[in-house]
């Protein structure tokens, strides 16, 4: 069966070559004469889809039948026996280096086939060439899959599998990955990665056919929003997973691979906003091409970092020289193709950009792009620094850049919708912003009170001599971040209120009817505003949960009745439950009753799971969620003297991050909801 998997990948590879050859040759012959060939190019794209789909189906079937003659299945099969066991069988497909690459290639074929399906009746030159570029990218992935270390269809050594097909070695999916968020995090992230190949392909396609009209942007803009959304959801789910599974109480550690997923997301923001200017004003043409190319190169960088072993990371797979050069060549090639194209087609891609004033809407879009690009390049440089003999940078450096850039960015994001094209009229601007500004002032005052009563004391707990007036980061950055976050929320809210009121007056409708109409009809705009609103909430949550975490370690007697106190809660130990699951995993769970002011308010059950087949321990964290803070309770183990080691963290405002994240997803989801019709040829 495993050989059949390789065979189908080979079929897909041949189909991809045929598709490119047919599309390029068909173009040479011209629209009329080449039509037959061009059609073959489209059909061959379905051949690629069929081949890769067959391969991934074989791998999935091997996971469900636990066919340990597949080395990849032996190493990544789930040992879970819970109700989610079937889900982890699917997750096995993308749990390791080899399968995740195949999964990615498969998603890429889906996107290519979707484009082929949508454009087949039109077969315009732009779509033909862009489809060829997509299949060209596909070839790179398929060839990479035949590099031994990346190949998911390797056979297990004979000594691994017994006569009855049972596995003789210990192996299996990393238990840290056996979690619901982990079954969704990789696929969403990979959908985002694969989807960003589409704007790249059309950017290159537009350069090839020298068509700087907005056609390519209109074809890809929804796919781009969708991909960016999936990337965001993937990053968010990864953070949720890190928070509840890894047991260190945080959700973002500036690990190289986390950074790698953030980079295309950052430049993706620039790409989406460039598309807006491109479509509405005919400007930012080179920006759009450049951001499409750079986003795709950053997508490749993520793969490069995880597979080449250039940087030490918790996510990294085994080092492989062949993959190193292959993915490096892919990145350099993509970047070069984009830059070369921009230079050669410089004249026709000169946009109708008008920078009449620094406070115009154009300027705010421009600074949006600059900030995102600078942030992405700096994060990439810091991440890759140790790979070229430089320093390794910790969270302190990344935070020091992320905070001011983030604040400035959210500020621009907040006011941008109130600015006007070409030149902003001061009086008009003031009339639009005065109420949101006042509301933001009120919210900021409330948050400042919260800072003084809840956050600053936590900072004092770890830094007893800190002075509130001279602390640049923990006073001024925190308060300014609160203020711009509040402004983003109030401005976005006011846009909905003002818009709905205006429409209600003009049409004689009710206020809520108008609001509903605005949200469901003007989707790109209202979805964008909602996304801005969510980002405002996120930055407020980030201040609390990343800058003011209280971290307490205690050890208590292993006897029921033992207690400790953290953050106003008293934890009273009730006892231990120990259980051996059918798969020999050992589950330990501690029961605590929680009292506040003498009243029983709930229970916490932190624990640990000792995974038998993988020989690994996982912490099961207990989290008490409150609107203003989480109490994060970890059982770290029992020492030789029988003392129970507990780690308790107080994470202020962390729920705000998750809530803002949900609002952002909702907003982006509204913005990407498809139009009824796709654009025809220009």
């Amino acid at each position: 069966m495993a050989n059949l998997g390789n065979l189908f990948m080979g079929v897909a590879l041949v189909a991809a070559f045929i598709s490119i050859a047919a599309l390029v040759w068909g173009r040479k012959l011209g629209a009329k004469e080449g039509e037959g060939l061009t059609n073959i190019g489209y059909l061959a794209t379905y051949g690629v889809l069929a081949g890769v789909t067959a391969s991934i189906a074989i791998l999935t079937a091997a996971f469900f039948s636990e066919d340990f003659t597949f080395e990849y299945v032996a190493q990544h099969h789930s040992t879970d026996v819970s109700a989610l066991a079937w889900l982890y069988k699917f997750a096995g497909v993308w749990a390791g280096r080899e399968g995740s690459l195949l999964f990615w290639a498969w998603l890429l074929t889906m996107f290519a086939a979707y484009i082929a399906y949508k454009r087949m009746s039109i077969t315009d030159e732009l779509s033909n060439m862009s489809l060829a570029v997509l299949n060209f990218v596909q070839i790179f992935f398929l060839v990479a899959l035949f590099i031994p270390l990346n190949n998911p269809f390797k056979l297990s050594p004979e000594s691994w599998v017994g006569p009855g097909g049972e596995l003789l070695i210990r192996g299996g999916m990393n238990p840290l990955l056996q979690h619901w968020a982990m079954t969704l995090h990789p696929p969403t992230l990979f959908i985002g990665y694969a989807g960003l190949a589409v704007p790249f392909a059309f950017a290159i396609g537009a350069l090839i056919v020298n068509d700087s009209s907005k056609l390519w942007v209109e074809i890809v803009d929804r796919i781009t929003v969708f991909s960016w959304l999936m990337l965001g959801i993937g990053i968010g789910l990864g953070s949720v997973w890190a928070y509840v599974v890894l047991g260190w109480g945080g959700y973002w550690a500036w690990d190289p691979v986390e950074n790698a997923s953030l980079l295309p997301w950052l430049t993706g923001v620039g790409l989406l906003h460039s598309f807006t200017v491109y479509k509405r004003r005919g400007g930012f043409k080179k920006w759009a091409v450049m951001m499409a190319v750079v986003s795709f190169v950053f997508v490749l960088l993520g793969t490069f970092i995880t597979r080449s072993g250039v940087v030490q990371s918790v996510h990294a797979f085994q080092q492989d020289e062949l993959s190193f050069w292959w993915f490096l060549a892919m990145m350099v090639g993509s970047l070069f193709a984009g830059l070369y194209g921009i230079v050669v087609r410089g004249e026709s891609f000169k946009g109708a950009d008008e920078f009449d004033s620094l406070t115009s809407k154009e300027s705010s879009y421009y600074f949006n792009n600059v900030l995102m690009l600078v942030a992405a390049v700096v994060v990439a440089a810091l991440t890759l620094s140790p790979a070229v003999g430089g320093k390794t940078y910790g969270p302190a450096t990344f935070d020091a850049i992320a905070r001011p850039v983030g604040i400035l960015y959210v500020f621009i994001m907040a006011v941008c919708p109130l600015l006007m094209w070409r030149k902003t009229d001061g009086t008009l601007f003031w009339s639009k912003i005065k109420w949101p500004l006042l509301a933001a002032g009120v919210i900021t005052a409330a948050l400042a009170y919260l800072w003084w009563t809840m956050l600053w004391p936590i900072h004092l707990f770890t830094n007893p001599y800190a002075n509130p007036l001279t602390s640049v980061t923990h006073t001024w950055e925190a308060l300014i971040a609160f203020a711009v976050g509040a402004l983003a929320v109030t401005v976005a809210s006011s846009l909905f209120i003002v818009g709905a009121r205006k429409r209600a007056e003009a049409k004689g409708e009710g206020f809520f009817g108008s609001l509903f109409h605005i949200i469901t009809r003007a989707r790109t705009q209202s979805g964008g505003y909602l996304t801005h609103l969510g980002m405002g909430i996120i930055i407020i949550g980030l201040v609390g949960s990343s800058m003011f975490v209280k971290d307490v370690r205690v050890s208590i007697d292993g006897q029921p009745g033992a207690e400790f106190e953290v953050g106003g809660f008293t934890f009273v130990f009730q006892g231990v439950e120990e259980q051996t699951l059918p798969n020999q995993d050992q589950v330990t769970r501690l029961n605590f009753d929680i009292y506040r002011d003498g009243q029983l308010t709930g229970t916490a059950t932190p624990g640990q799971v000792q995974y038998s087949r993988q020989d690994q321990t996982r912490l099961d964290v207990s989290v008490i969620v409150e609107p203003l803070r989480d109490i994060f309770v970890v059982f770290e183990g029992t020492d030789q003297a029988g003392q129970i080691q507990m780690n308790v963290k107080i994470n202020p405002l962390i729920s705000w991050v998750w809530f803002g994240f949900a609002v952002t997803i909702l907003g982006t989801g509204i913005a990407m909801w498809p139009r009824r019709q796709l654009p025809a040829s220009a």
Partner: protein
Amino acid sequence: MNKRARMRLIGVTAIIAISVVAIVVGVGAGDGSYSRSVSEVVDDAGAVGERVRVTGTVVPGSWDKKSSPMRFDIRDEGASEGPQIAVVYHGGVPSTFGDEVTAIITGVVNTNGVLESEDMITKCPSKYESATGALTIADLLAEGEGVIGKSVRVTGYVANGSILPPGGAVRFVIADEGGSPSVDVFYDGALPEGMVDGSQVVLGGLLDEQGVFDAVNVSLSDTEQ
């Protein structure tokens, strides 16, 4: 295009770029750290006060999870002797921490040569081990009764077809080059990935009275790499 607006735009862009670079240089100087091996830090007197990122193996028995802050020693990765650095670690101890674990520790070397750190990442123990200093099976058996129950390191080759599932009295058989003498091995842990018939392995453990070797850890010899 308005020329003045354009100049301003470029000016602001330059200010943003310069500020970001200034932050990187300013904060990065205090935070960034160069990667160093244990022996490099020990040999370099100038390393005192410098922020470094040291990769090393945790010396067995040198640590006590209870003490706060935790103290332990590390030596160069893969080495079984040689220079050591004492580490004082002021953070949460990763659950994978333990003897022979590879730890990547970021911190500052103080004037006593102690590495003060708040940042540690652990990697899983390497599955490869050097066979240098390990007994052959013939050496082990030649030691006679005196070696029974004592902790030893032995090396040998996995006998063909001898690897069995965990749970039984014998997990696999190892033999000297040429196939004899051989000894049965009891082991219930995870076998290293890539261990197959004929692999050279390095075992830690003890020979029991029945002549079965009770292995505590099983690694592939680094010649298998």
